[in-house]
């Protein structure tokens, strides 16, 4: 079994737990991540030289972060950790890599994709101005660099990350000019019953909001019509309150994004089937409870398999590893697997509550004008997509991409794909699932055109 090539992509909570379980099963996984150090997004570690106390970086989650980082040390020598290595393609039974020592091809017998998520961006006027960042980006600036995205910051969002990041900025001494929640306050109460399945998370959310209010940070719920303005950079943010009043806040930075979206390109290139997940309004790889995809010996775990959060990611990573071991015919602890299944189901209930509390802010897209930039890479406006959908009859995203170039830029539609699906469905008056998803194309991120690539 030791010559079985098992590859884990992603060194976040899901990938690290998967590696630990694979090692326990007697395997020597190859762990690949673009980052130099483990932790993924949530437990991302500052670069050498920029370290700070864990409590400051990760708040309530410091202990969990420390455990994941400790895993990296414990597994040293028992996994083959390829750091700073991009997996840019998956074709048949091999991955194409680009690492510090150049390009290579890594064949695999089994593959766990724990590729995580990124911020869910939605366009609004001015969102490409310098000074406008994703909420998660604003958090990374603080966490890994000790920097704020500006001196006087407005935060805008529609998920649990919003009060957290805002509070972290306040604690770090930043001037938080306003916290604007695009979801209505009443939704928080509707989500309560299911959120009670994870009381700690619930308490934390309430805690951040309470602290922000106590610190005198202006907060608003149910806001609409956001618009960033300024001469060459963001200088103020306009919005409309739930009551319909127009407001404007002066600032020099805006952190704005509206939840998370799964990174699924590699699963797509691996040939996995996808299903539409109505709850998170996105296509995700089809999988069973343990993370088995439609392709034999390819598994997905964590936020890359559908948004579930860090705790669920740890469990799912381990669960996928157990499934993989079982599929290889190795002995596995069935009680442990059953336990993980139970915990995952429980967290799933909680997740449903969270999504009720933070419903997708559809009103933001409904109201945006045709001239708002949709694809920030290619500079394509919302109106071009609407025209492709209505006048040129593009029934789904790839066709709209062919006509308009949305999703054809450097980011491969990561930043505009979800919004484009929503806009396309709305323009055609059709169900969101029919808008489809942008096909993954290699390289999943830009690769250099270097002759050394000619191995």
């Amino acid at each position, binding site marked *: 079994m030791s010559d079985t090539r098992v590859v884990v992509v992603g060194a976040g909570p899901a990938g690290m737990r998967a590696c630990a379980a694979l090692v326990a099963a007697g395997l020597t996984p190859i762990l690949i991540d673009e980052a130099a150090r483990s932790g993924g997004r949530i437990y991302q570690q500052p670069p050498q030289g920029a370290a700070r106390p864990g409590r400051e970086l990760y708040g309530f989650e410091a202990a969990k972060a420390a455990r994941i980082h400790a895993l990296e040390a414990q597994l040293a020598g028992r996994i083959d950790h390829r750091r700073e290595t991009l997996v840019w393609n998956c074709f048949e039974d091999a991955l194409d890599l680009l690492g510090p020592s150049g390009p290579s091809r890594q064949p695999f017998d089994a593959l766990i994709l724990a590729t995580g998520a*990124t911020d869910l961006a939605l366009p609004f006027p001015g969102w490409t101005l310098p000074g406008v960042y994703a909420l998660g980006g604003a958090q990374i600036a603080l966490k890994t660099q000790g*920097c704020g995205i500006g001196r006087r910051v407005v935060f805008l969002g529609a998920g649990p990350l919003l009060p957290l990041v805002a509070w972290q900025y306040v604690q770090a001494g930043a001037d938080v000019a306003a916290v604007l929640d695009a979801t209505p306050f009443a939704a928080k109460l509707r989500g309560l019953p299911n959120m009670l399945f994870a009381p700690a998370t619930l308490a934390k959310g309430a805690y951040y909001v309470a602290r922000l209010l106590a610190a005198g940070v202006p907060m608003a719920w149910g806001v609409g019509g956001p618009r960033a303005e300024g001469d060459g950079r963001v200088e103020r943010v306009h919005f409309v309150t739930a009551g319909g009043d127009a407001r404007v806040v002066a600032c*020099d930075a805006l952190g704005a994004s509206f939840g998370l979206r799964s990174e699924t390109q590699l699963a797509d290139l691996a040939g996995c089937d996808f299903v539409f997940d109505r709850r998170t309004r996105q296509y995700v790889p089809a999988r069973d409870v343990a993370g088995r995809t439609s392709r034999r010996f390819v598994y997905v775990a964590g936020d890359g398999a559908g948004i579930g959060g860090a705790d669920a990611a740890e469990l799912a990573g381990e669960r996928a590893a157990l499934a993989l071991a079982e599929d290889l015919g190795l002995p596995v602890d069935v009680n442990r697997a059953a336990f993980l299944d139970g915990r995952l189901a429980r967290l799933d209930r909680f997740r449903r509550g969270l999504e009720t509390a933070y419903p997708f802010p559809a009103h933001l897209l409904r109201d945006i004008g045709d001239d708002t930039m949709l694809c920030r890479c290619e500079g394509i406006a919302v109106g071009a997509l609407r025209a492709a959908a209505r006048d040129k009859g593009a029934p789904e995203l790839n066709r709209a991409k062919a006509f308009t170039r949305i999703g054809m830029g450097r980011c491969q539609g990561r930043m505009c794909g979800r919004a484009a699906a929503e806009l396309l469905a709305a323009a055609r008056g059709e169900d969101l699932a029919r808008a489809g998803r942008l096909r993954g194309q290699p390289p999943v991120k830009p690769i250099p055109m270097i002759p050394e690539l000619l191995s």
Partner: protein
Amino acid sequence: MQFVRLKPRDGETVALTIDGRSVEARAGDTLMTAILLHAPALRRFEFGDGARAGYCLMGACQDCFVALADGDRVRACTTLVAPGMAVRTGTRDV
């Protein structure tokens, strides 16, 4: 400048130039941090007016590619600053 250092730290200083101007960063800064502590943006936008200063900070949006004097371009949010780097943002108002 766009970023602000909320948690000052010691450590080695790293010298680089931005559009010909000498500035100092700290070891452990990303190139993005190093630039945006001294400049308002990273690059010009190819398809319209205005500049870009990154967006996601996690290597996903690819908005933060900056040009180095030797012609190469790097993704600033995932590249650590190194001594002697020479950056050309092409945004004149630096």
